[in-house]
């Protein structure tokens, strides 16, 4: 395979992933492949009508060579090459989704943190637990339960209550704890990263910031 084909595929893949990231969507390799194939199919042989309304623009010689190289690949070969291109692209990131799928996004448009939240939105339990653990580990801080009612989490109080109840009953989530501040606000934390007493201190401190300008 000619090197130009790889470069052209990298550009096409980045365009597809970036377009999805702008729409706050994570994409699989197969979804990117579909777009690539559609674009390749759309590049009609000379003399045939173009599918798009836009007037044809003559591609640069290296692009034309790359497109030719890609057209020569079968779908399986194209998929394998796309996998390598997506993994190596400096402007794209890979996320192992909760579904087990490998997902792609452009972190300058869709940050890793936000991508992780989007990926877990279908599973309130994983969403809540994952965010609590990440916050306890990284900042470190407990998070107010109210956080999960707001965008991008958008969980209902019932969703949150169910997730917390499920965690309480599951051995996998015994690290998830809660503290209640003097105002009655509940904050959630992970004992893997925060001790209970410190979590309470940090929760109370977070509320006091507004009274300590």
């Amino acid at each position, binding site marked *: 395979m000619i090197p130009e084909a790889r470069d052209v595929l990298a550009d096409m893949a980045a365009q597809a992933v970036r377009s999805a*990231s702008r729409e*706050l969507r994570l994409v699989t390799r197969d979804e990117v492949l579909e777009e690539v194939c559609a674009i390749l199919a759309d590049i009609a042989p000379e003399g045939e009508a173009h599918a798009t309304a836009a007037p044809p623009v003559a591609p640069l010689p290296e692009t034309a060579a790359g497109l030719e190289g890609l057209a020569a690949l079968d779908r399986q070969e194209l998929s394998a090459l796309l996998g390598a291109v997506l993994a190596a692209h400096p402007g794209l990131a890979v996320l192992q989704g909760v579904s087990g799928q490998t997902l792609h996004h452009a*972190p*300058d*448009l*869709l*940050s*890793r*943190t*936000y991508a992780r*939240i989007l990926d877990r939105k279908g599973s309130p339990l994983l969403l809540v637990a994952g965010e609590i653990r990440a916050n306890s580990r*990284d*900042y*470190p*801080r407990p*998070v*107010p339960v109210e*956080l999960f009612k*707001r*965008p*991008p*989490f958008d969980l209902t109080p019932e969703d949150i209550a169910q997730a917390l109840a499920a965690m309480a009953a599951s051995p996998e989530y015994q690290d998830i704890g809660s503290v209640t501040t003097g*105002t009655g606000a509940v904050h959630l934390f992970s004992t893997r990263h925060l*001790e209970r*007493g*410190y979590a*309470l*201190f*940090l929760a109370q*401190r*977070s509320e*006091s*910031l*507004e*009274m*300590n*300008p």
Partner: protein
Amino acid sequence: MTRPDGGFAGKVLRVDLSTGKTSTLDTREKYGALLGGTGLGYQVLWEEVPAGTGPFDPANKLVFATGALAGTSVPCSGRTAITTIFPSCWPKALVGSGHMGGQFAARLKYAGYDAVIVEGRSEKPVWLFIRDGRVELRDATHLWGCGIRRATLEISQEMGADCCVAAIGQAGENCAPLATVVNSLSHSAGGVGGVMGAKNLKAIGVQGSGGVRIAGDKGQWERLVKFHLSILGANNQHVVPAFPSPESEYYSPGSRWVGEPGKRWGAARPPVEITGSIHDMSRIAYRTNSAAYFLGEQAWKHTVRGNGCTSCPIRCHTTLKVPAMATKYGVSEIAQGTCIALNFGRFFFPQQPGGPKGQSALEACMLGMNMADDLGIWSNYGQLQRDFIKLANDGVFKAKLGSAEYAAIPWDKWRAGDPAFLLDIIPRIGHRQGELGHVLGQGSGGPFEHWGIREEVWTADRATTYWKMGHPKHHANEDDGQCGVIINTQYNRDAQCHSHTNFVRNGLPLAEQKRLAGELWGSPDSVDAPGHYTRMNPHKARRAKWALIRKELHDCLGLCNWMGPWVASPLKERGYRGDNSLESRFFSLATGQKLDREALDLAGERVFTLHRALTIRDMATADMRGAHDHVPGWVYEDPKGAQPFSQGTIRMDRADMALAMDMFYELMGWDKATGAPTAQAYARLGLADVGRELKARRLLPGGDAA
């Protein structure tokens, strides 16, 4: 070729209220080494105000001073420092500065002045008219007794729409130590209003048709301004949003970057919805909504806009419209403010119906802003309200006030958290009515002096957050362990330093903060997680020194230390780095006087050390460690008995803090035993003459040591 005469307007105006005479001085020639702002103010006090001068004596001077960067396009450059013998400093008034933003600094420079030195005392109320080279003292008899809004309106009508008026209200007229001077509706400087009142100076109105010359290359200047904009966060340089965003790797619910796309300024006509990229440099003003930060979601629907200072894109003075204010309380339905001023009203109440973000809290905030910024009352960083609550809860008012005065106060409304209580209590303080108004208007020193309360009662009570000398802590150990404590020992009022707290509260994860701290201050160990403090180390001392000197530099240059320094940024591609040399780069380009970061920091240290020298001279002791750099007892206690350095406490260790002060003094080149600068330290900073004068007064460490 660069001419080294940019940045400064060039002249300092001197106004003698006793004689009515005015004159000018050359800024660079006379005050250039001290940069402007507080540096200029300290120099005037050092040279012209004798030790022992009282704040309300005609011999006291009041120095309104901007800096080399005020009035330029540098973001966050709208500050004026007002330096004087500070009246709320207790038990003895010492040098201090109030600081205001708004439009005053720029207008003063456009009129051709970097500073105004006000001296003497007028026989009758006057206001100072400044229109370019025309300076007049005008009769203010008709304005005396008026609130700040009325005075501002009348002077504005006389001068024209493009003037800026800095005025005092009734609190200042009544020589309340807790009095402000206010310009541009809500931009106040605390503690100095009473000094204006004592001088019979109601206001300064200023109008200028000039500009500020930038000495350096204009293209370089524009690029640097754009770069500065690119590394700005929201209010207090919080560099991550409060909400998860696809455009940000990090978020922090405690961040003041609350302007999430989709939120609306609901009281704007028509309402404005926040849209677009959170990083868009032309939309920085949407990031901050102080009212939403302090009062929660409900504030969005009352938000009209963000207001702020000249050249500042942050707009931290949020304008609110609450129609109920007119109907329920008879005050304007519109008010604006930020931070403590925004919270002035609700801080009087230990609790309110609906909690701190309920409707009552909102109305209390609106009432407080409206009344305090008209009467010209300063809250002493919320100490006024904390003192009030403690005095009420401890039964002091009941015991000390006359029965008629006590009974006349609507305590039931206070206990119920009814904002209408403020309609009674705030005017008492502003007008200094009765014993309560007189005592509270004096600041924390009032109850100590008039009612014989021992200061130790306050320093032992953590809830007061009282620190020393009549003032509270201002971002101390609750935010930043030993650094916060060191910083709070140094000034004669609350420290007002944000260099340190803007970094530790910036919202980045601890690992990122430590990485940046390692680059900036030599070790990741210069920063701790809040409430998980480690023992003192030299890097913390270095950071404390940096924080203090950068604060002083900002006060000299006309920059806002509530916003800066800008050593962290929202930019992932920069590794969240800001720029530690930004101030010197701007200064060099503006003035044409090339100073790198170290050289400008040295100039800042010179100013900070002059403040120290003034304090030593006026306290008549070199023993700063024993007599001045106090730490209140509550810092060394924990309500649950937690030990210092354990997780979840802000309790500090006495021996460790003694070591911290040793390290700090040593780093400053000060004597460890007394915390006083040595003769060598003064000489190193170009203050040898100051050292000599202190030596003559036997106020160098070791008595008369050279």
